[in-house]
């Protein structure tokens, strides 16, 4: 198998100096293909169309949603009043949903990444009894679908009195077998054995070596696992749907789908303003994750390369 050194960023991701990037662009400029670029821009349009629609739709009243052309502004754009209405509906429950989502996803993602990093490092750098068996057990679990687990987990949590608490959503999200797999192969390359040996010689304990040296070297892999578990928990619908029945505990996905159901039951729709709130609420809720991906793209893209190349 091809081996990669994750610490060395892949060519496109490397922070090139402007001059370097410029000369690269110049040398290959004559090879750029216009038909291919146009085809890919058409592809891009398909992927951005729903988001464009959402942006336009958030500026409309429910009535205008029905009465004006979907892909362009109506005569009376009202984005700000839609945003205000979204945050004030039902005593500001939308803000609560956002906070809940941040809490559930944040705690789950950080916790899952740390657990995976420690365990991945443990599997990569130490040998102990049951090493292979334990790792294979976890690896096999990548194949177990979370939703098939969710119903039994619900039944167990119901016995333990954990249902309808934040823990019911956070606890199952703390275990990411794929995160562990990614961290193990990442740690194998990113943390040199010689460095660990040197630190041991200097009298550092194993735990100290991990927290002060290894974690720093594992950072790009860690960012990748944080981001992908963040997306998984931020976007999770099935688990909170079955675990929670108090609207004050809902994350954004369950909350918005309950609003969408109300808007649906509102019949013709034009009478109630629920539909505009669902649309505006959807727009607001996707902004944080999209921003996170844009800001951190350098890290997660190089981190992902590891998982896809090795096996």
């Amino acid at each position: 198998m091809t081996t990669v050194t994750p610490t060395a960023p892949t060519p496109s991701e490397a922070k090139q100096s402007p001059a370097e990037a410029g000369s690269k662009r110049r040398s290959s400029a004559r090879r750029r293909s216009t038909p291919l670029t146009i085809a890919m821009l058409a592809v891009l349009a398909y992927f951005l169309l729903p988001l464009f629609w959402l942006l336009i739709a958030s500026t409309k009243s429910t009535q205008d949603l029905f009465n004006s052309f979907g892909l362009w502004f109506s005569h009376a754009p009202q984005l700000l009043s839609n945003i205000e209405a979204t945050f004030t509906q039902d005593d500001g429950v939308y803000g609560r949903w956002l906070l809940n989502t941040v809490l559930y996803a944040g705690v789950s993602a950080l916790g899952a990444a740390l657990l995976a990093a420690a365990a991945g490092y443990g599997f990569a750098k130490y040998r102990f009894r049951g090493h292979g068996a334990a790792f294979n057990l976890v690896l096999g679990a990548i194949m177990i679908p979370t939703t098939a687990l969710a119903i039994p987990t619900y039944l167990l949590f119901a016995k333990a009195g954990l249902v309808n608490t934040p823990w019911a959503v956070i606890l199952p999200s703390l275990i990411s077998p794929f995160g562990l797999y990614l961290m193990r192969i990442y740690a194998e390359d990113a943390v040199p054995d010689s460095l660990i040996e040197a630190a041991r010689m200097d009298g550092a304990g194993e735990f100290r070596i991990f927290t002060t040296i290894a974690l720093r070297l594992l950072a790009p892999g860690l960012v990748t696992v944080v981001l992908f578990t963040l997306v998984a928990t931020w976007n999770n619908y099935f688990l909170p749907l079955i675990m929670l029945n108090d609207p004050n505990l809902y994350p954004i996905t369950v909350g918005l789908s309950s609003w969408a159901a109300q808007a649906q039951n509102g019949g013709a729709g034009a009478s109630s303003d629920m539909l505009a709130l669902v649309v505006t609420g959807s727009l607001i809720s996707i902004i944080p994750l999209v921003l996170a991906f844009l800001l951190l793209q350098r890290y997660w893209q190089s981190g992902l390369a590891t998982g896809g190349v090795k096996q």
Partner: protein
Amino acid sequence: MATTTTAARTKVPPRRRQVGTAGVLFIAPFMALFLLLFLAPLGYAAYLSLFQEKLIGGSTFVGLDNYTTALKDPQLLKGIGRVALFFVIQVPVMLLLALCFALALDSGLLRLARVIRLGIFVPYAVPSVIATLMWGYLYGPDFGPFAQISHDLHLPAPHFLSGSWMLGSLANIVTWEFVGYNMIILYAALRTIPGELYEAAAMDGAGAWRIAWSIKLPALRPALTLTLLFSVIGSFQLFNEPSLLMKVAPDVIDSSYTANLYAYSVAFISQQTNYAATVSFILGLVIVIVSYAFLLTANRRRTA
């Protein structure tokens, strides 16, 4: 550095043991939660699936009765059949598109490559609930732009939410959500192929297609296996998209439209705990078997 390692090696025996213990401590928190949150629910589901709630006598052990019922349950079989059909059609289309996009991005022939790459990936950051709501409105006959445009052109509007279109409409949503994610995994793998390989191939007179076929595709095999594995898991537990579109098209999507919807409705609507555990267990088993089958064929082809 070399001297320190040899020095370390001389006093290994007492250290080794201590070091091994440290390794166990690093994995202990993960493994403890893994046992509690992965294996315990699985075991509990297996246990529950062997019992039945009877009106008289409460919970009784029935052996594999629930399984024989489930394997003859037309609703479960219909749900599994439908996701299998979905998988067979949607996944190849999605992965082929992801592969084409990744190769196009990697070819260096594109202008605006960064913008295109991120733009295709962005839907992955959109929750499937919101993706489904958006597409649901776009598909809609009232104010969906497709219906509006057809209306303006005096053409019949496409019935995206009708029985014959629904599976395709769902496939479109899932494809929209995940092409970019798969593309990024494949693209990241492509970027790690050393440039010398291309130079050597070009010297031997290989063209762009030949390089893609003989160098890039073989190098992508592990990444393709990974994306395929995730797609198996994803398709067979399809829930969010159909459950949300069910509210828009209740006469097309029923509570057993997909296997997972059925598991949910058995557990939470008809509240048959034991049978729900059986259905989840069978669904999990189907996914594991299909995944293993793919991994085995992928491995066999590699060693052959």
